[in-house]
Protein backbone atom coordinates (compact mmCIF):
# COMPACT_ATOMS: atom_id res chain seq x y z
CA UNK A 1 0.00 0.00 0.00
CA UNK A 2 1.47 3.40 -0.96
CA UNK A 3 1.89 6.33 1.42
CA UNK A 4 2.75 9.84 0.27
CA UNK A 5 3.28 12.96 2.33
CA UNK A 6 3.36 16.50 0.91
CA UNK A 7 4.76 19.55 2.65
CA UNK A 8 6.23 23.01 2.33
CA UNK A 9 9.38 21.53 3.85
CA UNK A 10 11.01 18.11 3.73
CA UNK A 11 10.30 17.67 7.45
CA UNK A 12 6.61 18.39 6.91
CA UNK A 13 6.45 15.84 4.09
CA UNK A 14 7.99 13.26 6.46
CA UNK A 15 5.35 14.12 9.08
CA UNK A 16 2.55 13.73 6.54
CA UNK A 17 3.93 10.40 5.29
CA UNK A 18 3.84 9.15 8.88
CA UNK A 19 0.24 10.30 9.22
CA UNK A 20 -0.68 8.49 5.98
CA UNK A 21 0.94 5.30 7.24
CA UNK A 22 -0.83 5.36 10.59
CA UNK A 23 -4.15 6.03 8.84
CA UNK A 24 -3.77 2.59 7.21
CA UNK A 25 -3.88 1.06 10.68
CA UNK A 26 -6.75 3.07 12.19
CA UNK A 27 -8.73 6.29 11.86
CA UNK A 28 -6.23 8.79 13.27
CA UNK A 29 -9.05 11.20 14.18
CA UNK A 30 -10.04 8.72 16.91
CA UNK A 31 -6.52 8.50 18.36
CA UNK A 32 -5.87 10.99 21.17
CA UNK A 33 -2.46 12.69 21.17
CA UNK A 34 -2.04 11.92 24.85
CA UNK A 35 1.51 10.62 25.12
CA UNK A 36 4.69 11.65 23.30
CA UNK A 37 7.35 9.22 22.08
CA UNK A 38 10.76 10.40 20.85
CA UNK A 39 12.45 8.83 17.82
CA UNK A 40 15.97 9.35 16.47
CA UNK A 41 17.18 8.03 13.09
CA UNK A 42 20.25 8.38 10.94
CA UNK A 43 20.76 7.26 7.34
CA UNK A 44 23.10 8.03 4.43
CA UNK A 45 20.42 9.65 2.25
CA UNK A 46 16.91 11.11 2.40
CA UNK A 47 15.15 8.02 1.04
CA UNK A 48 16.70 5.64 3.57
CA UNK A 49 16.00 8.21 6.28
CA UNK A 50 12.30 8.22 5.35
CA UNK A 51 12.19 4.41 5.49
CA UNK A 52 14.00 4.52 8.84
CA UNK A 53 11.56 7.09 10.25
CA UNK A 54 8.52 5.09 9.27
CA UNK A 55 10.02 1.81 10.47
CA UNK A 56 10.99 3.41 13.80
CA UNK A 57 7.38 4.47 14.28
CA UNK A 58 6.16 0.94 13.50
CA UNK A 59 8.60 -0.42 16.06
CA UNK A 60 7.48 2.03 18.76
CA UNK A 61 3.81 1.31 18.07
CA UNK A 62 4.45 -2.44 18.25
CA UNK A 63 6.45 -2.57 21.48
CA UNK A 64 4.35 0.07 23.26
CA UNK A 65 1.00 -1.23 21.92
CA UNK A 66 0.20 2.32 20.87
CA UNK A 67 -1.32 4.15 17.92
CA UNK A 68 -0.05 7.58 16.84
CA UNK A 69 -1.93 10.49 15.35
CA UNK A 70 0.41 13.52 15.40
CA UNK A 71 4.03 13.91 14.36
CA UNK A 72 6.83 16.44 14.47
CA UNK A 73 10.09 16.06 12.58
CA UNK A 74 13.38 18.00 12.73
CA UNK A 75 15.99 17.20 10.12
CA UNK A 76 19.69 17.92 10.39
CA UNK A 77 21.67 16.44 7.48
CA UNK A 78 21.62 12.67 7.85
CA UNK A 79 19.86 12.86 11.24
CA UNK A 80 16.19 12.95 12.13
CA UNK A 81 14.78 13.85 15.53
CA UNK A 82 11.09 13.16 15.71
CA UNK A 83 8.22 13.02 18.11
CA UNK A 84 5.01 11.07 17.78
CA UNK A 85 1.92 11.57 19.91
CA UNK A 86 -0.72 8.96 20.51
CA UNK A 87 -2.27 6.59 23.02
CA UNK A 88 -2.53 2.91 23.92
CA UNK A 89 -4.47 0.74 21.45
CA UNK A 90 -8.14 0.48 22.43
CA UNK A 91 -9.67 -2.07 20.07
CA UNK A 92 -13.25 -1.14 20.98
CA UNK A 93 -12.67 2.54 20.20
CA UNK A 94 -10.00 2.49 17.49
CA UNK A 95 -11.11 -0.59 15.51
CA UNK A 96 -7.57 -1.03 14.13
CA UNK A 97 -7.82 -2.71 10.72
CA UNK A 98 -4.36 -4.03 10.01
CA UNK A 99 -0.75 -4.06 11.17
CA UNK A 100 1.85 -2.53 8.91
CA UNK A 101 4.81 -4.94 8.78
CA UNK A 102 7.40 -2.55 7.41
CA UNK A 103 8.21 0.36 5.12
CA UNK A 104 9.80 -0.98 1.93
CA UNK A 105 12.11 0.62 -0.64
CA UNK A 106 9.45 0.24 -3.33
CA UNK A 107 8.52 3.57 -4.96
CA UNK A 108 10.68 5.15 -2.24
CA UNK A 109 11.20 8.81 -3.11
CA UNK A 110 11.96 12.09 -1.37
CA UNK A 111 12.03 15.12 -3.66
CA UNK A 112 10.94 18.71 -4.11
CA UNK A 113 8.60 19.04 -7.10
CA UNK A 114 7.78 22.65 -8.07
CA UNK A 115 8.31 23.87 -4.52
CA UNK A 116 6.35 21.07 -2.85
CA UNK A 117 8.19 18.38 -0.93
CA UNK A 118 7.08 14.79 -1.49
CA UNK A 119 8.01 11.85 0.75
CA UNK A 120 6.61 8.49 -0.34
CA UNK A 121 7.06 4.74 -0.20
CA UNK A 122 5.10 1.48 -0.25
CA UNK A 123 4.47 -0.21 3.08
CA UNK A 124 3.93 -3.95 3.51
CA UNK A 125 0.66 -4.85 5.24
Amino acid at each position, binding site marked *: *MGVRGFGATKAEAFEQAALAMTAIIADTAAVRAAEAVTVHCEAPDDE*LLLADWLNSLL*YEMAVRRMLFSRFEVRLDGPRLDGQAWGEAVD*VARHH*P*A*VEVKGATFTALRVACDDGVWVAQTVVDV
Partner: protein
Amino acid sequence: MELQLFTRRSEYEWEIPRRDAMRVPGVIFASEALIRDMDHKVYEQTVNVACLPGIVTAAYAMPDAHWGYGFPIGGVAAFDPAEGGVVSAGGVGFDISCGVRCLNTGLTREDIAPVQKALADLLYRRIPAGVGSTGTIHLDAAEMDAMLTGGARWAVGRGWGTDADLERIEEHGRMRDARPDAVSPQAKKRQRDEMGTLGSGNHYLEVQAVTAVYDATLAETFGLRPGAVVVMIHCGSRGLGHQIGTEFLKRMAVAAAGLGIVLPDRELACAPIDSEVGREYLGAMRAGINCALANRQMLTHLVREVFAELLPAARLVLLYDVSHNTCKVETHIVDGRARRLFVHRKGATRAFGPGHPELPPALRAAGQPVLIGGSMGTSSYVLAGVESAETLAFSSACHGAGRAMSRHQAQRTWQGRQVVDALAARGILIRSPSQRGVAEEAPGAYKDVSAVVDAAEGAGLARKVARLEPLVCVKG
Protein backbone atom coordinates in the same frame (compact mmCIF):
# COMPACT_ATOMS: atom_id res chain seq x y z
CA MET B 1 0.62 -8.03 -19.69
CA GLU B 2 1.21 -8.13 -23.42
CA LEU B 3 1.77 -11.69 -24.63
CA GLN B 4 4.40 -10.59 -27.18
CA LEU B 5 6.77 -9.93 -24.28
CA PHE B 6 7.15 -13.69 -23.93
CA THR B 7 8.23 -16.79 -25.75
CA ARG B 8 5.56 -19.36 -25.03
CA ARG B 9 7.25 -22.62 -24.00
CA SER B 10 4.00 -24.50 -23.34
CA GLU B 11 0.37 -23.81 -22.50
CA TYR B 12 1.30 -22.66 -18.99
CA GLU B 13 4.95 -21.60 -19.30
CA TRP B 14 6.00 -18.15 -20.55
CA GLU B 15 9.66 -17.32 -21.04
CA ILE B 16 11.23 -13.87 -20.81
CA PRO B 17 14.28 -14.41 -23.04
CA ARG B 18 17.64 -13.46 -21.60
CA ARG B 19 18.82 -9.99 -22.64
CA ASP B 20 20.98 -7.09 -21.46
CA ALA B 21 22.05 -7.62 -17.83
CA MET B 22 19.95 -10.74 -17.32
CA ARG B 23 22.13 -13.70 -16.33
CA VAL B 24 19.32 -16.20 -16.89
CA PRO B 25 15.88 -16.07 -18.53
CA GLY B 26 12.69 -15.40 -16.62
CA VAL B 27 9.84 -17.91 -16.58
CA ILE B 28 6.25 -17.21 -15.53
CA PHE B 29 3.84 -20.11 -15.02
CA ALA B 30 0.26 -19.06 -15.80
CA SER B 31 -2.69 -19.60 -18.06
CA GLU B 32 -3.13 -17.12 -20.89
CA ALA B 33 -5.95 -15.42 -18.96
CA LEU B 34 -3.87 -15.11 -15.79
CA ILE B 35 -0.86 -13.70 -17.57
CA ARG B 36 -2.97 -11.15 -19.44
CA ASP B 37 -4.33 -9.93 -16.08
CA MET B 38 -0.96 -9.99 -14.34
CA ASP B 39 0.59 -6.69 -13.28
CA HIS B 40 3.39 -5.56 -15.62
CA LYS B 41 5.52 -5.09 -12.49
CA VAL B 42 5.77 -8.89 -12.26
CA TYR B 43 7.58 -8.83 -15.61
CA GLU B 44 9.93 -6.04 -14.49
CA GLN B 45 10.66 -7.64 -11.15
CA THR B 46 11.27 -11.08 -12.69
CA VAL B 47 13.74 -9.47 -15.11
CA ASN B 48 15.46 -7.67 -12.21
CA VAL B 49 15.83 -10.89 -10.20
CA ALA B 50 17.32 -12.57 -13.29
CA CYS B 51 20.12 -9.98 -13.16
CA LEU B 52 21.32 -10.90 -9.66
CA PRO B 53 24.73 -12.56 -9.19
CA GLY B 54 24.89 -16.34 -8.97
CA ILE B 55 21.29 -17.00 -10.01
CA VAL B 56 20.82 -20.50 -11.41
CA THR B 57 18.69 -21.64 -14.39
CA ALA B 58 15.97 -18.96 -14.32
CA ALA B 59 14.00 -16.45 -12.26
CA TYR B 60 10.56 -17.97 -11.79
CA ALA B 61 7.11 -16.56 -11.03
CA MET B 62 4.17 -18.72 -9.96
CA PRO B 63 0.59 -18.40 -11.30
CA ASP B 64 -0.42 -16.17 -8.36
CA ALA B 65 2.46 -13.74 -8.91
CA HIS B 66 1.86 -10.07 -8.24
CA TRP B 67 3.81 -6.90 -7.59
CA GLY B 68 6.10 -7.35 -4.60
CA TYR B 69 9.01 -5.57 -3.00
CA GLY B 70 12.06 -6.26 -5.15
CA PHE B 71 11.14 -9.85 -5.89
CA PRO B 72 7.61 -10.45 -7.16
CA ILE B 73 5.31 -12.13 -4.66
CA GLY B 74 5.09 -15.61 -6.10
CA GLY B 75 8.77 -15.48 -7.02
CA VAL B 76 11.27 -18.35 -6.86
CA ALA B 77 15.01 -17.94 -7.41
CA ALA B 78 17.96 -20.19 -6.55
CA PHE B 79 21.52 -18.96 -6.03
CA ASP B 80 24.82 -20.82 -5.98
CA PRO B 81 27.37 -19.54 -3.44
CA ALA B 82 30.17 -21.05 -5.54
CA GLU B 83 29.22 -18.63 -8.33
CA GLY B 84 29.00 -15.51 -6.15
CA GLY B 85 25.35 -16.15 -5.36
CA VAL B 86 23.42 -13.80 -3.10
CA VAL B 87 20.83 -13.90 -0.38
CA SER B 88 18.17 -11.20 -0.41
CA ALA B 89 16.08 -9.93 2.51
CA GLY B 90 13.53 -8.67 -0.02
CA GLY B 91 13.55 -12.10 -1.66
CA VAL B 92 12.20 -13.58 1.57
CA GLY B 93 9.96 -10.71 2.60
CA PHE B 94 9.08 -8.98 5.85
CA ASP B 95 6.94 -11.80 7.19
CA ILE B 96 9.65 -14.45 7.37
CA SER B 97 8.27 -17.99 7.15
CA CYS B 98 4.70 -16.84 6.82
CA GLY B 99 2.90 -20.06 6.08
CA VAL B 100 -0.08 -22.33 6.42
CA ARG B 101 -0.75 -25.41 8.49
CA CYS B 102 -3.64 -27.79 8.13
CA LEU B 103 -5.02 -29.96 10.93
CA ASN B 104 -7.33 -32.90 10.29
CA THR B 105 -10.05 -33.08 12.96
CA GLY B 106 -11.57 -36.51 12.31
CA LEU B 107 -14.97 -34.75 12.25
CA THR B 108 -17.48 -34.05 9.49
CA ARG B 109 -19.42 -30.87 8.81
CA GLU B 110 -22.49 -32.58 10.32
CA ASP B 111 -20.54 -32.92 13.59
CA ILE B 112 -19.72 -29.22 13.54
CA ALA B 113 -23.16 -27.89 12.63
CA PRO B 114 -24.75 -28.03 16.14
CA VAL B 115 -21.86 -26.12 17.72
CA GLN B 116 -20.69 -23.98 14.82
CA LYS B 117 -21.59 -20.68 16.50
CA ALA B 118 -20.17 -21.70 19.86
CA LEU B 119 -17.00 -22.88 18.11
CA ALA B 120 -16.62 -19.55 16.28
CA ASP B 121 -17.13 -17.60 19.50
CA LEU B 122 -14.74 -19.68 21.59
CA LEU B 123 -12.00 -19.67 18.93
CA TYR B 124 -12.35 -15.89 18.72
CA ARG B 125 -12.04 -15.56 22.50
CA ARG B 126 -9.02 -17.86 22.78
CA ILE B 127 -6.96 -16.95 19.69
CA PRO B 128 -5.24 -13.57 20.15
CA ALA B 129 -5.82 -11.75 16.88
CA GLY B 130 -5.55 -8.24 15.50
CA VAL B 131 -3.52 -5.11 16.10
CA GLY B 132 -2.13 -4.76 19.62
CA SER B 133 -3.07 -8.29 20.72
CA THR B 134 -0.69 -10.18 22.98
CA GLY B 135 -0.23 -13.83 23.80
CA THR B 136 -0.44 -15.40 27.22
CA ILE B 137 3.20 -16.50 27.11
CA HIS B 138 5.86 -13.83 27.61
CA LEU B 139 9.43 -14.89 26.92
CA ASP B 140 12.50 -13.85 28.89
CA ALA B 141 15.87 -13.59 27.15
CA ALA B 142 16.88 -17.21 27.66
CA GLU B 143 13.52 -18.59 26.54
CA MET B 144 13.54 -16.27 23.53
CA ASP B 145 16.87 -17.68 22.38
CA ALA B 146 15.69 -21.23 23.06
CA MET B 147 12.60 -20.58 20.93
CA LEU B 148 14.64 -19.02 18.12
CA THR B 149 16.89 -22.08 18.07
CA GLY B 150 14.26 -24.73 18.64
CA GLY B 151 11.20 -23.64 16.65
CA ALA B 152 8.20 -25.96 16.95
CA ARG B 153 10.44 -28.46 18.79
CA TRP B 154 10.82 -25.87 21.55
CA ALA B 155 7.05 -25.43 21.68
CA VAL B 156 6.44 -29.19 21.86
CA GLY B 157 9.07 -29.39 24.62
CA ARG B 158 7.01 -26.86 26.55
CA GLY B 159 3.94 -29.07 26.22
CA TRP B 160 2.24 -27.37 23.27
CA GLY B 161 1.96 -30.36 20.97
CA THR B 162 3.35 -33.81 20.43
CA ASP B 163 6.39 -35.34 18.75
CA ALA B 164 4.05 -36.61 16.04
CA ASP B 165 3.43 -32.99 15.04
CA LEU B 166 7.08 -32.40 14.31
CA GLU B 167 7.48 -34.81 11.41
CA ARG B 168 4.58 -33.04 9.68
CA ILE B 169 6.40 -29.70 9.65
CA GLU B 170 9.02 -28.62 7.12
CA GLU B 171 12.51 -29.07 8.58
CA HIS B 172 10.86 -31.43 11.09
CA GLY B 173 9.83 -28.44 13.16
CA ARG B 174 13.26 -26.90 13.67
CA MET B 175 15.32 -24.89 11.20
CA ARG B 176 18.96 -25.72 11.68
CA ASP B 177 21.76 -23.13 11.87
CA ALA B 178 19.57 -20.41 13.35
CA ARG B 179 21.54 -17.67 15.07
CA PRO B 180 19.73 -15.88 17.87
CA ASP B 181 22.87 -13.75 18.27
CA ALA B 182 22.22 -12.28 14.80
CA VAL B 183 18.73 -11.18 15.83
CA SER B 184 18.74 -7.65 17.23
CA PRO B 185 17.50 -6.81 20.73
CA GLN B 186 14.79 -4.70 19.05
CA ALA B 187 13.48 -7.68 17.10
CA LYS B 188 13.42 -9.80 20.25
CA LYS B 189 11.68 -7.06 22.20
CA ARG B 190 9.05 -6.75 19.47
CA GLN B 191 8.33 -10.47 19.80
CA ARG B 192 8.40 -10.80 23.57
CA ASP B 193 4.62 -10.55 23.99
CA GLU B 194 3.53 -11.78 20.55
CA MET B 195 4.05 -15.54 20.82
CA GLY B 196 0.89 -17.44 20.03
CA THR B 197 -0.78 -14.54 18.22
CA LEU B 198 -2.38 -14.64 14.80
CA GLY B 199 -1.61 -11.14 13.53
CA SER B 200 -3.83 -9.23 11.14
CA GLY B 201 -4.28 -8.48 7.45
CA ASN B 202 -4.56 -11.65 5.39
CA HIS B 203 -3.75 -13.88 8.36
CA TYR B 204 -6.56 -16.07 9.63
CA LEU B 205 -7.63 -19.23 11.36
CA GLU B 206 -10.39 -21.15 9.61
CA VAL B 207 -12.47 -24.24 10.21
CA GLN B 208 -13.09 -25.67 6.74
CA ALA B 209 -14.90 -28.60 5.15
CA VAL B 210 -13.80 -30.61 2.12
CA THR B 211 -16.21 -29.82 -0.71
CA ALA B 212 -14.49 -31.54 -3.63
CA VAL B 213 -11.97 -34.33 -4.07
CA TYR B 214 -9.89 -34.48 -7.25
CA ASP B 215 -7.60 -37.40 -6.43
CA ALA B 216 -9.29 -39.96 -4.19
CA THR B 217 -6.11 -41.89 -3.37
CA LEU B 218 -4.14 -38.84 -2.32
CA ALA B 219 -7.14 -37.39 -0.50
CA GLU B 220 -7.43 -40.60 1.51
CA THR B 221 -3.73 -40.41 2.40
CA PHE B 222 -4.20 -36.79 3.50
CA GLY B 223 -7.42 -37.55 5.46
CA LEU B 224 -9.52 -35.35 3.19
CA ARG B 225 -12.71 -37.25 2.43
CA PRO B 226 -15.73 -35.24 1.21
CA GLY B 227 -17.31 -33.45 4.17
CA ALA B 228 -14.24 -33.89 6.38
CA VAL B 229 -13.46 -30.89 8.59
CA VAL B 230 -10.01 -29.38 8.95
CA VAL B 231 -8.50 -26.34 10.65
CA MET B 232 -6.28 -24.11 8.55
CA ILE B 233 -3.96 -21.56 10.18
CA HIS B 234 -2.25 -18.82 8.16
CA CYS B 235 0.32 -16.64 9.94
CA GLY B 236 4.04 -16.04 10.27
CA SER B 237 6.88 -14.83 12.46
CA ARG B 238 5.02 -11.78 13.78
CA GLY B 239 6.96 -8.71 14.90
CA LEU B 240 10.30 -10.51 15.10
CA GLY B 241 10.28 -11.40 11.42
CA HIS B 242 9.13 -7.91 10.43
CA GLN B 243 11.98 -6.34 12.38
CA ILE B 244 14.63 -8.71 10.97
CA GLY B 245 13.40 -7.96 7.44
CA THR B 246 13.43 -4.20 8.07
CA GLU B 247 16.93 -4.12 9.55
CA PHE B 248 18.62 -6.36 6.99
CA LEU B 249 16.93 -4.68 4.03
CA LYS B 250 18.69 -1.46 5.06
CA ARG B 251 21.99 -3.13 5.91
CA MET B 252 22.07 -4.92 2.56
CA ALA B 253 21.14 -1.76 0.63
CA VAL B 254 23.89 0.23 2.33
CA ALA B 255 26.50 -2.56 2.03
CA ALA B 256 25.77 -3.55 -1.59
CA ALA B 257 28.15 -1.13 -3.32
CA GLY B 258 31.01 -2.03 -0.99
CA LEU B 259 30.41 -5.71 -1.73
CA GLY B 260 30.63 -5.12 -5.48
CA ILE B 261 26.92 -5.62 -6.14
CA VAL B 262 25.23 -3.36 -8.67
CA LEU B 263 21.50 -3.30 -7.91
CA PRO B 264 19.06 -2.62 -10.78
CA ASP B 265 16.77 -1.36 -8.04
CA ARG B 266 17.49 -0.62 -4.39
CA GLU B 267 14.61 -2.79 -3.28
CA LEU B 268 16.56 -5.81 -4.56
CA ALA B 269 18.99 -5.28 -1.68
CA CYS B 270 21.05 -8.42 -1.24
CA ALA B 271 24.46 -9.63 -0.08
CA PRO B 272 26.78 -12.43 -1.15
CA ILE B 273 25.91 -15.64 0.68
CA ASP B 274 29.57 -15.81 1.57
CA SER B 275 29.79 -12.40 3.27
CA GLU B 276 29.43 -11.27 6.85
CA VAL B 277 26.07 -9.57 6.32
CA GLY B 278 24.88 -12.50 4.18
CA ARG B 279 25.78 -15.04 6.86
CA GLU B 280 24.22 -12.92 9.60
CA TYR B 281 21.02 -12.52 7.64
CA LEU B 282 20.80 -16.26 7.02
CA GLY B 283 21.27 -16.93 10.74
CA ALA B 284 18.68 -14.33 11.72
CA MET B 285 16.24 -15.40 8.99
CA ARG B 286 16.48 -19.03 10.16
CA ALA B 287 15.72 -17.84 13.70
CA GLY B 288 12.71 -16.07 12.18
CA ILE B 289 11.60 -19.34 10.58
CA ASN B 290 11.80 -21.02 13.98
CA CYS B 291 9.72 -18.21 15.47
CA ALA B 292 7.00 -18.78 12.87
CA LEU B 293 7.05 -22.55 13.41
CA ALA B 294 6.81 -22.08 17.18
CA ASN B 295 4.01 -19.55 16.76
CA ARG B 296 1.89 -21.82 14.58
CA GLN B 297 2.55 -24.68 17.03
CA MET B 298 1.33 -22.56 19.95
CA LEU B 299 -1.79 -21.55 18.03
CA THR B 300 -2.39 -25.23 17.29
CA HIS B 301 -2.33 -25.93 21.01
CA LEU B 302 -4.95 -23.23 21.62
CA VAL B 303 -7.15 -24.66 18.87
CA ARG B 304 -6.86 -28.16 20.34
CA GLU B 305 -7.98 -26.84 23.73
CA VAL B 306 -11.05 -25.23 22.17
CA PHE B 307 -12.02 -28.41 20.30
CA ALA B 308 -11.46 -30.50 23.45
CA GLU B 309 -14.00 -28.34 25.27
CA LEU B 310 -16.68 -28.26 22.60
CA LEU B 311 -16.07 -31.37 20.52
CA PRO B 312 -14.26 -33.91 22.69
CA ALA B 313 -14.46 -36.57 19.97
CA ALA B 314 -12.16 -34.51 17.76
CA ARG B 315 -8.55 -35.58 17.30
CA LEU B 316 -6.62 -32.74 15.75
CA VAL B 317 -3.78 -34.32 13.79
CA LEU B 318 -1.38 -32.16 11.86
CA LEU B 319 -1.53 -32.91 8.13
CA TYR B 320 1.32 -30.57 7.25
CA ASP B 321 2.86 -27.13 7.85
CA VAL B 322 4.34 -25.18 4.94
CA SER B 323 6.20 -21.89 4.91
CA HIS B 324 5.92 -19.67 1.85
CA ASN B 325 8.41 -16.84 2.63
CA THR B 326 11.83 -18.44 3.01
CA CYS B 327 15.34 -18.98 1.75
CA LYS B 328 16.46 -22.58 2.23
CA VAL B 329 19.52 -24.59 1.34
CA GLU B 330 18.44 -27.46 -0.88
CA THR B 331 20.09 -29.88 -3.27
CA HIS B 332 18.72 -29.77 -6.79
CA ILE B 333 19.80 -31.43 -10.01
CA VAL B 334 20.87 -28.83 -12.55
CA ASP B 335 22.10 -30.04 -15.96
CA GLY B 336 22.51 -33.53 -14.53
CA ARG B 337 24.59 -32.37 -11.57
CA ALA B 338 23.53 -32.17 -7.92
CA ARG B 339 24.08 -28.64 -6.65
CA ARG B 340 23.63 -27.07 -3.21
CA LEU B 341 21.53 -24.00 -3.80
CA PHE B 342 19.97 -21.22 -1.71
CA VAL B 343 16.37 -21.25 -2.89
CA HIS B 344 14.30 -18.11 -2.25
CA ARG B 345 10.56 -18.61 -2.23
CA LYS B 346 8.62 -15.42 -1.65
CA GLY B 347 4.92 -16.15 -1.71
CA ALA B 348 5.68 -19.58 -3.11
CA THR B 349 5.41 -23.02 -1.55
CA ARG B 350 8.03 -25.76 -1.49
CA ALA B 351 6.44 -28.71 -3.28
CA PHE B 352 8.59 -31.84 -3.06
CA GLY B 353 7.39 -34.70 -5.22
CA PRO B 354 6.85 -38.36 -4.27
CA GLY B 355 9.86 -40.14 -2.86
CA HIS B 356 11.67 -37.07 -1.59
CA PRO B 357 13.75 -38.02 1.46
CA GLU B 358 12.68 -34.88 3.38
CA LEU B 359 9.08 -36.08 3.49
CA PRO B 360 7.80 -38.12 6.45
CA PRO B 361 7.35 -41.84 5.69
CA ALA B 362 3.56 -41.63 5.74
CA LEU B 363 3.56 -38.97 3.01
CA ARG B 364 6.61 -40.02 1.00
CA ALA B 365 4.73 -41.98 -1.63
CA ALA B 366 2.11 -39.24 -2.04
CA GLY B 367 4.30 -36.15 -2.29
CA GLN B 368 4.33 -33.10 -0.06
CA PRO B 369 0.99 -31.52 0.83
CA VAL B 370 0.90 -28.04 -0.70
CA LEU B 371 -1.52 -25.82 1.20
CA ILE B 372 -3.15 -23.00 -0.76
CA GLY B 373 -5.00 -20.50 1.37
CA GLY B 374 -8.16 -18.73 0.39
CA SER B 375 -9.86 -16.44 2.84
CA MET B 376 -13.34 -16.11 4.30
CA GLY B 377 -15.64 -16.72 1.34
CA THR B 378 -13.11 -18.18 -1.06
CA SER B 379 -11.99 -21.77 -1.41
CA SER B 380 -8.73 -23.15 -0.11
CA TYR B 381 -6.99 -26.06 -1.79
CA VAL B 382 -4.72 -28.90 -0.83
CA LEU B 383 -2.38 -29.97 -3.60
CA ALA B 384 0.40 -32.53 -3.68
CA GLY B 385 3.95 -32.08 -4.90
CA VAL B 386 4.83 -33.78 -8.18
CA GLU B 387 8.13 -34.89 -9.68
CA SER B 388 7.91 -32.56 -12.66
CA ALA B 389 8.13 -29.45 -10.44
CA GLU B 390 11.76 -30.33 -9.71
CA THR B 391 12.92 -29.57 -13.23
CA LEU B 392 10.33 -26.84 -13.78
CA ALA B 393 10.96 -24.62 -10.73
CA PHE B 394 13.13 -26.26 -8.06
CA SER B 395 10.07 -28.08 -6.66
CA SER B 396 7.92 -25.01 -6.05
CA ALA B 397 4.26 -24.13 -6.47
CA CYS B 398 1.88 -21.24 -5.82
CA HIS B 399 0.72 -20.12 -2.35
CA GLY B 400 -2.64 -18.38 -2.71
CA ALA B 401 -4.77 -16.16 -4.86
CA GLY B 402 -3.17 -12.75 -4.52
CA ARG B 403 -5.06 -9.49 -4.29
CA ALA B 404 -7.07 -8.26 -7.25
CA MET B 405 -8.03 -4.99 -5.55
CA SER B 406 -6.19 -2.59 -3.24
CA ARG B 407 -7.23 -2.33 0.41
CA HIS B 408 -8.36 1.23 -0.20
CA GLN B 409 -10.56 0.19 -3.11
CA ALA B 410 -11.99 -2.72 -1.11
CA GLN B 411 -12.80 -0.37 1.76
CA ARG B 412 -14.73 1.87 -0.62
CA THR B 413 -16.52 -1.10 -2.22
CA TRP B 414 -17.72 -3.01 0.85
CA GLN B 415 -18.65 -2.48 4.47
CA GLY B 416 -17.43 -5.02 7.00
CA ARG B 417 -20.89 -5.68 8.41
CA GLN B 418 -22.29 -6.39 4.93
CA VAL B 419 -19.50 -8.88 4.25
CA VAL B 420 -20.05 -10.64 7.60
CA ASP B 421 -23.82 -10.86 7.04
CA ALA B 422 -23.51 -12.05 3.45
CA LEU B 423 -21.10 -14.79 4.47
CA ALA B 424 -23.28 -15.78 7.45
CA ALA B 425 -26.13 -16.30 4.99
CA ARG B 426 -23.86 -18.77 3.21
CA GLY B 427 -23.13 -20.57 6.50
CA ILE B 428 -19.71 -18.99 7.04
CA LEU B 429 -19.22 -17.35 10.45
CA ILE B 430 -16.68 -14.52 10.61
CA ARG B 431 -15.17 -13.26 13.85
CA SER B 432 -12.88 -10.23 13.74
CA PRO B 433 -12.05 -7.23 15.95
CA SER B 434 -12.16 -4.93 12.92
CA GLN B 435 -15.05 -4.40 10.51
CA ARG B 436 -12.76 -2.32 8.32
CA GLY B 437 -10.27 -5.17 8.28
CA VAL B 438 -13.04 -7.52 7.13
CA ALA B 439 -14.01 -5.13 4.33
CA GLU B 440 -10.38 -4.88 3.18
CA GLU B 441 -10.17 -8.68 3.14
CA ALA B 442 -13.52 -9.23 1.41
CA PRO B 443 -13.50 -12.33 -0.81
CA GLY B 444 -14.09 -10.16 -3.88
CA ALA B 445 -10.81 -8.32 -3.26
CA TYR B 446 -8.88 -11.46 -4.21
CA LYS B 447 -8.21 -13.13 -7.54
CA ASP B 448 -9.90 -16.40 -8.40
CA VAL B 449 -7.87 -18.94 -6.44
CA SER B 450 -9.35 -21.78 -8.50
CA ALA B 451 -7.84 -20.35 -11.69
CA VAL B 452 -4.46 -20.11 -9.95
CA VAL B 453 -4.62 -23.70 -8.75
CA ASP B 454 -5.74 -24.98 -12.15
CA ALA B 455 -2.77 -23.23 -13.74
CA ALA B 456 -0.38 -24.70 -11.17
CA GLU B 457 -1.69 -28.18 -11.97
CA GLY B 458 -1.71 -27.55 -15.71
CA ALA B 459 1.88 -26.36 -15.57
CA GLY B 460 2.97 -29.51 -13.75
CA LEU B 461 3.93 -27.74 -10.51
CA ALA B 462 1.52 -29.70 -8.27
CA ARG B 463 -1.52 -31.97 -8.40
CA LYS B 464 -4.95 -30.98 -7.09
CA VAL B 465 -6.14 -33.16 -4.21
CA ALA B 466 -9.09 -31.39 -2.56
CA ARG B 467 -10.99 -28.13 -2.34
CA LEU B 468 -12.14 -26.77 1.01
CA GLU B 469 -14.72 -24.16 1.97
CA PRO B 470 -14.78 -22.21 5.25
CA LEU B 471 -17.31 -22.74 8.05
CA VAL B 472 -15.68 -20.43 10.59
CA CYS B 473 -13.06 -17.73 10.06
CA VAL B 474 -11.20 -15.82 12.75
CA LYS B 475 -9.54 -12.77 11.19
CA GLY B 476 -6.96 -10.59 12.83
